[in-house]
Every structure is written in C-alpha cells, then in structure tokens.
C-alpha cells in the first residue's frame, strides 16, 4: 500500500522536477572515409524524454530550426546534410502544429575528402543548434559542441 502511494507521489513530484539544461545529447562514432569519394557519416541525436526540438525545416519563420554547423577544411568538405522527416506537435489549445524532432534520430552527412587528402585521423569540430520545448514551456536556444572523429583512407581500388 505504502509502496503504491510512494510511486503515485513520486510521479506527482516528478511532474515538477527542475528542468535539466542538457536536453539534447549527441553521439558520434569514428567513421572511416575514403579520399576522392562521397562518404556517409551519421550523427546520433537524443532528445530528452518529454521534450521536442524544432525541426530543421520549420513552418513558421519566427521559430529557430535545428541546425548543424561543421568546421571543414579544404581537404574535408560536406556536400550535404540530411535531417530526418519531422513529426507534428500540436500546441495545446490552438490549431497550430509545429514540425519537431523528439526521441532519438540521425543526421546524415555526406563527407567528401579531397582525392589528395592525406591518410590519417582527423577531428572535425561541430555544433548542433536547437530550441527545445515540452508541452508546457520552452527553453532558450542552446548549442551542443561536439567532435566528429574521422579516419581518412586512400581511395578503394
């Protein structure tokens, strides 16, 4: 009986737990890419349960879309960033829907090392910009800094 009561109370209390600022985490494994080819690299993004972030393509220009910024160089360039399809989130009490991401999703990068890129390990600095909300409140825009480890190998024969 007390156990059940405790669970119910923890649930009630949990609804008012302080918001953690780390709403989004990013996971990247080292990718092997080949010089002179277009290679796919995946960025794993995890949005904390109960929250969503605005999608890369928003339906209202005042919203802040999720975006990915990567520091490339003359030998390592990105030809395309592919974000997943968004979900629809209905704003309670309105007829408005927002394009959002929640849970886990992947951003695909097409990384094109120059044919003359030297073999070896590289690290690209990257930043994911997002603006998160839950069903009751919104947080100010935030940025996650992370690294993309790359190993460049000679073109496959």
């Amino acid at each position: 009986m007390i156990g059940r009561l405790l669970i119910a109370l923890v649930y009630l209390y949990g609804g008012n737990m302080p918001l953690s600022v780390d709403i989004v985490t990013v996971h990247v494994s080292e990718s092997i890419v080949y010089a002179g080819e277009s290679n796919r690299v995946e960025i794993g993004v995890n949005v904390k349960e109960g929250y969503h972030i605005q999608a890369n393509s928003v339906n209202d220009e005042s919203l802040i879309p999720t975006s990915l910024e990567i520091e490339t160089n003359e030998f390592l360039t990105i030809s395309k960033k592919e974000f997943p399809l968004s979900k629809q989130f209905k704003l309670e009490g309105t007829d408005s829907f927002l394009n959002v991401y929640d849970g886990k999703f992947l951003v695909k990068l097409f990384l094109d090392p120059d044919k003359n890129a030297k073999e070896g390990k590289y690290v690209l600095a990257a930043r994911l910009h997002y603006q998160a909300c839950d069903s009751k409140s919104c947080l100010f825009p935030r940025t996650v800094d992370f690294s993309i480890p790359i190993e460049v190998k000679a073109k496959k024969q």
Partner: protein
Amino acid sequence: MKANSRSMILLVAFFASYALYAQSEQPMLGQIAPSFKLPGIDGKMYSLQQFRGKYVVIHFAATWCPFCNAEAPYLEQLHKDYLQKGVQVFIIDVKESKELVTKLSQKFNFTFPILLDEDGAISASYAPEGVLPDLPRDEVPLASNLILDKEGNIRFYSLLNTTNFDAKLTKIKQRLDELLSVSEKP
C-alpha cells in the same frame, strides 16, 4: 519497525505537500512586482511606476517562442477588450534586438507597448526563488503572464512549468474580471 513506518509517513507527507504546492500555487502572489524602466520598440521609455493606478498585464516573450506567438492574437484582443476598463497590457521581450522584435510586432499588429529587456535583468528579477533552479534566472519567466493590481502587487502569475498552456488567456481574463468587479464595488 515503528520508527520506519513513522519515517515513511513523514516522507510521504513531505512529497505530497510539495507536489500539491507546486501544482496549485502561483508564485510571488501578493508581492510587490519588481520595478523596472525599459525602452519600448517605439523609442519611448516605460517604467512600471507610471502604470500605478491601473491594472497591468505583463507577458514575457521571445520572438522564437511558440507558446508566446500562439497567444499573441489573444493578447492583442485582451488589450482591446480591457483598455477602457483601466487595464494596461504590455510585453517584455527577453534578450532580443529591437529590429527582430519590431518585425514580429508588425506581424501581430500589436497596439500596446512592447518593451525590450535586452540583457534579461528584468526577466531574472521576476524569476521566483527556487523555481527551475537549473535554468538561468532570466529564462524562467518566459511565456508567463502576470496581473499587477493598482498598487503594483502581483495578483496572478501563470508560470508555464506549473500550469497548463492557456493560449486563449481564459484564466487571466477570469482573474481580471474578478479583480475588476471587486474594485468597482463602492
């Protein structure tokens, strides 16, 4: 065993009272609202002091905030409906440029003052102590609505993390009506 049960009851009572408090109580009620002097996007300076003698509705907003934008048309309507009843509505935009805020204000055709809290200091002064302790204080009041009475006391504070989103401003209008009906009585 008895001591364990007693501790358990105390723990349960603590959680229960905290949960009920957090869900039902609006923060800072009865307190004097923090004073401020802020520039409006119209180039004028506005101070809270100049609105003494009127009921004041404050909405904390940012241009990118979906909750704020969803209630924007209803806030303009509230301003029109209550202006003649001695209610002054304004928005305090938090940490954004005049250019950006002006652009959004034009989209919604706001006819009440939009004030710029560019460093977030005023917003931070309205963050209730102990609420959302992980967040920077200037972010806490975002999308909240307040009513101040004629003496500048806080009489309504819908902090979004503790109340459900009310785009049509039903609860604030209800509270305004209550306050106005009391102040109209001889």
